């Protein structure tokens, strides 16, 4: 444990190949020391290289981080990553979008040539071609995509860290070692894309499945379009305001609508075929399945009705999350799903597109914060840090110390309840944890402006519908 502790003080990324479980067993003093060391290191390294961070630090008059409180004014509002003007996209000014992104990363984007780029997808592809950046986009809060300047190496790191978490979360070696077990990977989604759940696929296929031959996707050759996701978000926002008739579509998007339409029309049939193929190829074997609860329940409901159950090996793994939004599931939905799948090993995390590490869910239903993530609970009114003592409810903010090319400080839109500073969780782990009751502030205030992973397909469908019926 002290080895990990010493390593983390020096280099947060040493956690990736370090002892995952030991990171959840630090003493209070060790956690504080790791947090402060990580913040200092990243601040000192990144301030001179990330213009937006430098501007914020200058404005706040902060030149050094001496305490956790010092870091709070340096956490970015989550809106920073979508603060570009939408008109840039509408007018196809991707040079300006590049310049905007340049302010958020140490990577020099000054030489990126955006000539001929006429879509977000095209812009992301251009960045892929000319840099090691593997940009991530969200699914569009209030009509705009956030863009995170993550690097190729970061995806490898977070995929590796997740594998170690799965292997060691319940004790060293208690879970499958995805890096070597070569479990077939089953995902009812897109193989390609820069959306939050798709960008990591490349590294997972390579590092976990061992190649595309050992993986199955609903859309094995297709790319999840950022342009469609962007349109879905804008459409949702316009609908909420009664301005649906006023959306203007770029010619580039209209030109591609035949292709989108074709794929969407085939979706229900393909989903059925996908499940059949998964059973044919991998039935009875241990697999690694990624799917949100509503889709799983749909499969289980139909499958159980047709007498299908116990389809996969008991050593399989389910990676799920996303809640059950948009659909009311029966109380025993998980049991039905487990019956259908034939196994119950599930790895659930609380995370968000902006963060590299996830917070695994324990037996007590809490989400544990790994040592490379500095968690804060802020007073929702004043924005001040609430003490690291007892149980505190407020706005979740955090500092992700893994990324080394962009600033990992973020104030989220989520309300959380955090504890674990004075006494360990009921599960026995000593790391600070968030209660299972996490919700969006925007929902508390009466609206719901987030299209989360589970809600995205629905919004995506509506966007398609709009695109297909739009004049042009």
């Amino acid at each position: 444990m002290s080895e990990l502790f010493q390593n983390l003080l020096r280099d947060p990324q040493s956690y990736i190949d370090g002892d995952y479980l030991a990171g959840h067993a630090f003493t209070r003093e060790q956690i504080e020391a790791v947090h402060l060391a990580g913040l200092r290191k990243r601040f000192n390294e990144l301030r001179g290289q990330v213009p937006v961070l430098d501007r914020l630090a200058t404005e706040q008059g902060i030149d050094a981080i001496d305490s956790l409180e010092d870091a709070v004014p340096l956490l970015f509002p989550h809106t920073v990553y979508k603060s570009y003007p939408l008109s840039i996209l509408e007018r196809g000014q991707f040079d300006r979008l590049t310049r905007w992104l340049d302010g958020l990363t140490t990577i020099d984007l000054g030489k990126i040539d955006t000539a001929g780029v006429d879509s977000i997808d095209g812009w992301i592809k251009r960045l892929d071609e000319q840099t090691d950046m593997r940009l991530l986009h969200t699914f569009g809060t209030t009509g705009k995509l956030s863009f995170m300047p993550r690097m190729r190496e970061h995806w490898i790191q977070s995929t590796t860290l997740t594998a170690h978490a799965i292997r060691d979360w319940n004790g060293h070696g208690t879970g499958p070692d995805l890096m070597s077990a070569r479990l077939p990977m089953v995902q009812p989604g897109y193989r390609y894309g820069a959306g939050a759940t798709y960008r990591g696929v490349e590294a997972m296929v390579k590092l976990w499945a061992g190649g595309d031959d050992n993986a199955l996707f609903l859309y094995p050759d297709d790319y999840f379009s950022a342009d469609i996701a962007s349109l879905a978000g804008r459409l949702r926002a316009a609908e909420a305001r009664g301005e649906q008739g006023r959306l203007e579509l770029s010619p580039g998007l209209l030109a591609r609508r035949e292709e989108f339409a074709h794929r969407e029309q085939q979706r229900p049939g393909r989903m059925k075929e996908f499940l059949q193929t998964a059973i044919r190829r991998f039935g009875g074997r241990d697999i690694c399945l990624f799917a949100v609860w509503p889709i799983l329940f749909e499969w289980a409901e139909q499958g159980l009705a047709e007498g299908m159950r116990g389809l996969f090996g008991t050593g399989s793994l389910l990676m799920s999350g996303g809640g059950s939004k948009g659909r009311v599931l029966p109380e025993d939905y998980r049991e039905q799903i487990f019956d259908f799948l034939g196994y119950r090993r599930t790895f659930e995390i609380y995370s968000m597109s902006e963060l590299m590490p996830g917070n695994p869910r324990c037996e007590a239903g809490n989400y544990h914060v790994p040592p490379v993530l500095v968690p804060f609970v802020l007073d929702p009114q004043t924005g001040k840090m609430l003490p690291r003592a007892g149980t505190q409810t407020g706005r979740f903010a955090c500092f992700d110390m893994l990324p080394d090319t962009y600033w990992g400080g973020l104030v989220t839109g989520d309300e959380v309840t955090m504890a674990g500073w004075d006494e360990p969780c009921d599960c026995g782990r000593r790391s600070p944890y968030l209660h299972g009751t996490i919700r969006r502030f925007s929902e508390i205030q009466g609206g719901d402006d987030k299209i989360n992973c589970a809600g995205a397909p629905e919004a995506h469908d509506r966007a398609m519908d709009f695109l297909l019926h739009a004049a042009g």
Partner: protein
Amino acid sequence: MQESMRVPFVLRGEIIDDCTVEHGGRHGQARFLTPDIESALGRLPLREPSRMADLYSLTMDDIVGYLARLGKALDVRTNRHMQEAFALSCRTSGLSEPILRYYYELIPQSFEPAVVREMAERLVGIDYLEGWVEQASALHTGVPTRVRAFGARCVHVIAGNVPMVSVGTVVRNAFTRSDAIIKTPSNDPLTATAIARTMVEMDRDHPLTRHMSVVYWKGGDESVEREIYDPRGVEKIVAWGGFASIKHVTRYLQPGLDLITLDPKHSSTIIGREAFADDVTLESVARRLALDIGAMNQEGCVNARVVYVQSGTDAEGLARANRLGELAIAALQQLPEFLSTPHKAFDAALKEEIDGLRYAGDEYVVYGGRKNEGAIIVSQNDAPVDFARQLACRVGNIVPLDDIDTAVRSVNAYTQTIGIFPETLKTQLRDRLSYQGAQRLVSLGAAALFEDAATPQDGIEPVRRMCKWIVEQTSDPVMLDNLARGTM
């Protein structure tokens, strides 16, 4: 937790004070108790249209006299109901106390005889309200046709952003001799109620009192609305406000029910290059801009939000726009407190958007916006911020332009008021702005003032539409007879 305020119903001269149902106010601050609307539903609509007849025993002089007495009785310094309404508004409204006080003190003025007469004359025509008016015709040679404006049975779903909406509804209902059911909003549940209670105390059997009801139910409650929006008891609905509230109402539309919508709107500003003529002019323009953004704490649809400025978009142009932004935020802080104050419940989501911009490279310059003091965001290109529709709590967005046409093209049917500087630009653009959908063109600074309020609203004449326009014609009996015989 503060104690829940009681909001009784006023039903045709009767006060129902059995407050058992709790409702939440906006901004998460105040809660209030009302009677159960279910128990009042049966008596609320006027099912027998003939019961409108008592209003026609009154002359316009009677109506003006009644309203004059009412106005005097509504003095917030002495009227206990108005004091309660003021106190509750201080908790439910987006306006802060000094602004509310100013509006409450203005209320009696709206009931003065000269004001009421001018409203009736210009918004309808007193002769049409008082009797049958012969229609001159160059074509028709017989007895002239007569037209008269009758009152209608009307539900008013009113807005609560300023107390003047309640006041105007009561006055309009009286001089059109209509029957009103006012559904109050949760951000101002008591002003209309206080006026109606005062009417009951003043003269409970007066026809004008008997044709006024004020109730509250939660907008969208289908079991209530299906009963009320029924053409057997109601002929017209006047719906103010947000997209959601109007969407609720449209569910119940059917033949016999006329919907008059005062849609959700936003207003903007167009400032020509003359603003930059010299420092004195620019400072004055900034002060007037602050008025358009800040008056009524930007709670009104008339308030400026996006501000198009013909500053130019090159480096010098942006510097000019930024200078205006700097002056405007300073002017905003200087506005007298009865017009504008820092917002008491600054929109948290808007704050996050502003915080995001501050570090978004060189696309925007933000003045203010640290706490609740308001903000001026200056776009460093010719496009408004993406959250332009969310601008509130004294936040304006200056958009620099090279060509004023860009501003003209941005106007549409959602644009209510446009404050314009200078006057010559207003004259020059007024027709084109009207084609685009703009509904009210004013001098920069006057957007949220109502110097001359007896005007059309949102591009329509809602008071004329509140009336039923009845035609009476007389024809020559011999001609009709011959027509029937085929002997013409």
